[in-house]
């Protein structure tokens, strides 16, 4: 009996000893902060802002899908051959449907960027940042990035869902908002950015959005709707700032300096997405990973000895005037030297997979050189360590837009002057307008020169698609550049199927026409 009492006591003690203290169920997260504990300090807001830039750089945006989406919808590009993935080829030939992966990637990533930007915009005002200017700058940078993204969205898709704050409930999915509403937010965001952001950054802030970048984007927003009057002063301000900083024309002497790793953040640059050769390419759609993988896949996608998914269209090649040096800055021809400049290799037909082009009546292999790493090394079959920054906007573009504005609402002479600045670049050194092929006697003639100059100067720089869209809208295109174009369909991309499927406020009935 004594044993029983003894053992019972032990049992009861054990019961009590591990009896369940309900506080045990309250656990601290020792790995991660939450939205309620983060966004309190300057460094946290700064990191949150870096997160917005990171999406811009990601695989679904500037890293890959975004430039593809622009290029595939322009007439500058042709398929490199069977290696071009089907969903990309569909966009190129106009058979894309709402399930297309290229356009849904860009759509999704754009809104991820907007979510992150909204977080900065909403949390920063209450954060403990003593430097009021810094706080304002963080918010302004976020608004700049949000505005740029919304502009891309409505230019591609028309009416799009508008989120001025991040959503907090599953019922927050928005219906399509009219472009005018979206554009109003874009203008207001950019206006604030212009008033807050500095004209330039230095040191480890290089790559941030600046006042001139905001002005340039706002100008493009206006130009997209033919609002030359509103765009012109903005572009002039950008040019003035650039020329003041450069102490002269804001163009690099060497055209190709705009596409190499060694000459990043130069005076011609208005805004760049930064990439570094450190690590490999980060295939994550949103640009999330733990490695220092911040390189760019562009070279691999287009290079002569890479995958060569897209090649210049015959039309683009034909656009180049005889002896325009930019032809050889933009493209590799068979027999060109590439790789380590101290022991260059000669490019062969066999090196270049896939399709040939017809240039000057000759069928031959021609490949993209712009943004290819082949200017300095032989990437072999595969090279995903390219650190060349992507120049989102550069002064040549600004000068050309200004020329277009002058031609529309200002002086034709000034327009030609701006055009000729581009042609006078030492490494280009093309005869000034007017030329035999491009007289400048009339507004129309100058516009043709603008169109030509934009096409050859900015070839493969993701400007052509929006140029076509805005010129078409304004009735400025004598001939339709897109072979498959069909009115009331191809002006816009289809709302991605994923959005139709998951957003209860957007149904097939709300789809863009033709899809």
């Amino acid at each position: 009996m004594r044993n029983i009492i003894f053992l019972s006591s032990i049992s009861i003690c054990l019961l009590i000893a591990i009896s369940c203290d309900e506080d045990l169920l309250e656990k601290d997260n020792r790995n991660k902060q939450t939205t309620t504990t983060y966004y309190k300090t300057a460094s946290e807001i700064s990191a949150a802002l870096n997160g917005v830039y990171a999406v811009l750089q990601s695989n679904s945006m500037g890293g890959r899908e975004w430039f593809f989406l622009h290029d595939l919808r322009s007439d500058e590009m042709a398929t490199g051959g069977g290696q071009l993935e089907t969903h990309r080829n569909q966009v190129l030939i106009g058979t894309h449907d709402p399930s297309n992966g290229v356009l849904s990637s860009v759509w999704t990533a754009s809104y991820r960027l907007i979510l992150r930007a909204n977080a900065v915009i909403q949390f920063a005002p209450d954060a403990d940042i003593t430097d009021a200017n810094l706080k304002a700058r963080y918010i302004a940078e976020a608004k700049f990035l949000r505005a740029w993204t919304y502009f891309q969205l409505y230019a591609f898709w028309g009416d799009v869902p508008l989120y001025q704050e991040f959503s907090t409930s599953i019922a927050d999915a928005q219906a399509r908002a009219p472009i005018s509403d979206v554009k109003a937010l874009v203008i207001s965001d950019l206006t604030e950015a212009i008033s807050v952001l500095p004209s330039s950054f230095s040191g480890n802030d290089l790559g941030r959005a600046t006042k001139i970048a905001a002005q340039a984007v706002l100008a493009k927003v206006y130009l997209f709707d033919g609002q030359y009057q509103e765009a012109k002063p903005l572009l002039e301000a950008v040019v003035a700032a650039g020329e003041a900083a450069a102490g002269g024309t804001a163009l690099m002497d060497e055209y190709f300096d705009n596409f190499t790793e060694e000459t990043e953040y130069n005076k011609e640059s208005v805004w760049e997405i930064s990439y570094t050769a450190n690590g490999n390419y980060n295939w994550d759609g949103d640009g999330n990973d733990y490695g220092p993988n911040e390189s760019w896949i562009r070279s691999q996608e287009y290079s002569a000895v890479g995958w060569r998914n897209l090649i210049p269209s015959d039309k683009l090649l034909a656009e180049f005037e005889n002896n325009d040096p930019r032809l050889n800055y933009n493209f590799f021809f068979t027999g060109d030297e590439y790789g380590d400049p101290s022991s260059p290799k000669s490019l062969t037909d066999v090196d270049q997979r896939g399709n040939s082009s017809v240039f000057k009546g000759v069928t031959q292999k021609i490949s993209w050189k712009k943004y290819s790493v082949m200017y300095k090394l032989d990437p072999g079959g595969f090279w995903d360590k390219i650190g060349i920054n992507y120049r989102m906007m550069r002064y040549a573009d600004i000068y050309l837009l200004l020329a277009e504005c002058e031609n529309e609402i200002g002086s034709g002479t000034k327009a030609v002057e701006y055009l000729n600045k581009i042609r006078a670049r030492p490494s280009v050194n093309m005869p000034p307008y007017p030329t035999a092929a491009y007289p400048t006697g009339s507004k129309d003639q100058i516009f043709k020169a603008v169109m030509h100059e934009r096409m050859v100067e900015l070839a493969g720089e993701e400007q052509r698609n929006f140029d076509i869209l805005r010129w078409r809208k304004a009735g400025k295109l004598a001939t339709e550049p897109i072979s498959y174009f069909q009115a009331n369909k191809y002006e816009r991309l289809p709302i991605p199927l994923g959005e139709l499927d998951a957003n209860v406020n957007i149904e097939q009935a709300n789809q863009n026409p033709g899809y």
Partner: protein
Amino acid sequence: MIATLLVICSLNLQAGDTLKKGDDSATIVLSVKSASVKEILENLEEQTNFHFFYNHKAMSSSEKITMTLDNVSLESALREIGERADLVFKVRGDQIVVKKKPAVSVISMFQREDYFLSKQDIDRVLASSKEVTIINEISVSGQVIDEVSKPLPGVNILVKGTTIGTTTDADGRYALTAPDAGSVLVFSFIGYTTQEVAVGNQTDISIKMEPDVSTLSEIVVVGYGTQKRSSVTGAVSSVESKEISALAVPSVQSALQGRVAGVNVTNNGSPGASPIVRIRGIGSITGSSDPLYVVDGLPTGGLNSFDPRDIESVEVLKDAASAAIYGSRAANGVILITTKKGAKNRGMTVDVESYYGVQNAWKTLDLLKRDDYLQYGTELLTNAGSTLPARFSNMNDPIYSGTSQTYAQTETDWQDEVFQAAPIYQLQASLASSTEKAKLYASAGVYGQDGIMVGTDFKRYNFRLNSEMNISKFVRFGQTLTIASSNQTNLQESGGRTILQHVVHSVPYMPVRDPTKLGGYRAPDNNDGSDPENPMRIQEMDENSTDVVKVFGTAYLDVSILQSLTYRFTFGSDFSYSKNLVDQPIYNDGFGGRTQHNLQDNRTTWFSPLFQNQLTFNKQFGKHLINVTAVAERQDLKFSALNASAQQSSNFIYSLQAGQNQTIGYNDTYETTLLSYLGRINYEFAGKYLLSASIRRDGFSGFAPGHKWGNFPGVSVGWRVSEESFMASIPSISELKLRASYGSLGVNNVGPFDWQSLISLNTTFPFNNTNQGGAYFNSLPNTELSWEKTQMTNFGIDLGLFNNQVTLTAEYFQRKVDDLLLRVPLAPSMGYTVDYLGNVGKMENSGFELQAGYNKMDGDFTFNLTANIGTVRNEVTDLYVPGSTIFAGSNADFGGTNITKTETGHSVQGFYGWVTDGIFQTQAEIDAANNADGDAATKYQSQAAPGDIRFKDLNNDGVINESDRTYLGSFLPNFSYGLNFSGNYKNFDVTLFLQGVQGNEVYNGTKVLTQGMLRLFGAETDVLNAWTPENTDTAVPRAVNGDPNQNSRTSNRFIDDGSYMRIKNLTIGYSLPSAILNSFAKGSVRKLRIYASFQNLLTLTNYSGYDPEIGYRNANSLVQGIDYGQYPQPRTIMGGIQVGF
């Protein structure tokens, strides 16, 4: 023991008719001092006409009695004497039999089938005995032996229809007194078939017990205890060790396939990959639908670490009432695994078992050979207006410099390269011992299995030690421990594509190897116009392997507080450590390459301790049997993960140290706690009416504040109709039980902080080429995140005929899930990456299960036949927002469109796409279709050309778009079944096990790859039959690169019937007769059996891909049954030997 005690009840101590043999008024006068019993009895003989019979030896007690009786009845006298001298008396005619009273105190408390009567009880019984019985008793004795002729102790022997009985001793011997010659002795023992023997005039009845192969074995393990099979009221299915170890598989999960009605097992991947186990349908849409695995009372995972041969039994708790005792984790069913505890009988046995076999792919596809490939490629590209690859016109080039072999001379069979004959083997030695004081089971084993695809394998070393010791009459200690070390080399994916995808895509004129390339492998390059990766390079050069060490043990202390009340304290510890190595060497195969040797070292530590306090009360009050269980327990999980990576410039350095780009990627550490209180009462009246009720209250730290606790009750009732007296007229029905149950269960399948919106810091932006860290959140928080609730009702019937020679169990269940833990896909425009985890949606599963068995246990030819079949009907009854849908399965290589859709009113993840309507034969047909709506400008299918597939315009709007999709089928079978035959003829044994599913569809992604003609890749020979203006009588559309008409979109073209029936196992064994064994081994070898076994010997199916058993890819739910090119199940031929000492 029971019987002996109860014999007292019939003791005649009342002076009645039959006690008046002599003088009915006789009274006893007795006065003795220090007299022996013998002397007293002799005295009484003189005073009455009765004669006392007794064993003189038994009465030789030296105990002396002093007593005085004055004029009392004989009855009173005997009672007094019995009390003093521990004797009982029985009247037989004019004789009185005298026996020693049984010693109550030696009854072991652990023999729960025993009954206890206190001294007071005995007195009460004695006092109330009124009857007088004259019995023509027969003393019977004998020995019980087991199937290998060893004595079997502990066998229960009961005289049928009475309470008279005993158990065998350590030598298997017993002795009892049967009431008369018409008595029937019932011999029963756990794990053996119950036998009945009529006594007649026999006095020596020795029998051999046969192992019970029926599923209605006596004791089943239920949560926190055991129960007699006959008392079970829930839906509990048992699988025994023999069935579990019948197949050469790494884990118990695969062994369960086809064994239990209502349990669906789908093998899913290369060796060591966990199969998908679904009990009674799909429980959750985006959460896990995996059951809870409880090994020796400790919930765990990682079943690969448990050697199936160490397993004694597996119980599947299918309904809510039986599983409710596991509350918040049991909604998907519970699988209880009990490991072997010791020998079945006292003594020691040593067993050594080994098998070796070879596995092969049982099917390959008919892929294009070189010349056919060139022909097909030419047509594909020409039709699209694309240039032909340069190689097509340079086939006479050498495949690499320095060799004379040309592409035109090269013909690689990529399937032949990747598939291999793969060995499989196991060696296990085990020792089992049992004594009165202790039981012991120890084993050590090694299991190895190479995959039939190059570069995959699984290997395990395992050790087990289980023991149980009776420390005293009141205290027992037991423990289980297993230590297992395994290594798994995984089938890889590269570029988001499965190895089989690369295999069927590979170009037949390409060599596998090329010594001139860095790394030695070759892939198509720019000249080939095609870019599959070299699957051999991926599998041979790259490596993704995981080492797991698991130390898993429990220890328990049983304390008998009262005879009917026991306390058990259990401590369990589940520790596992895993190390995953990703090794990607430098290479350049001409198309792709790596310039750095990428290395990843990913480690996780998992430690889950369990503390459990359990009180069990078990008592019989007359016809009432009550069993009450109360438990308080706590299970924690301490988890940490550390993933590190670096790059080396040498392929021979595997260390991260001094590498470039060293990073600590994922580093996570967390703890969770689950607190539980539970109680259960089982009540049984007269062995006929059964009731079980339980409730569990669980608190889990992973849920949002205020939503952490949940209550999970269950109740079940049963009626053993066969025990009713009115059933006695139908002797053929040996068992008939009706059961019904209802209960509520939960699922806590959430991460520790899923309710919060967490900040991620794993992103950077390189301002000025200098990385700066970024922060973001990508999920919507849910501060109301809580339990998923499942309600299940179950109706069952158990039927046994002809002494349970035929058994039948039928069940119907209805399972309703509410507050479904669902990952709701958010509109992409909301910007969140992670789908919202909420308690939203409802789903129902319902179905029938039937399990039947037939035993033929006599004669030279004995056999056992069992069959089971289960159906499940699934319907999503509500999603998060009315009209909401969840699509899944989209993949650019498989047509680019989503493949499954989940919505209210349909079964989960139905295949969803377009319906084909033949092939457009002419432009005129296309024009007519375009004009069908009266407007030729609105195209029917905008890119259609002759030879393209015409899709059905389901909504008749004259255009094919997203709105013309419909449900095409489901991966859920109409029913699944298993059929097992095991027979013995003399020394031969044979087992034939069939398993299959019927009525399910597979989305044949492999066919999209091989016939989709999206781009130039290797393909199946069917593409040679593609539509051309000359070849119009075909189902294969025209070959055109880029697939402008999207002929490969999700459609019924790729839906295949996934039904199959497999000869899962055929085993033929031969056991050496004991005479021969004795002749050469002199008795040291108890058993020697050799066998040949075939797994997946034959598969009957109409499925045209590699294998119809399709799980899911990347552990993603909602893509089950889509064949993206998953690892096919092998056919295995093996031989084995079992030796027992």
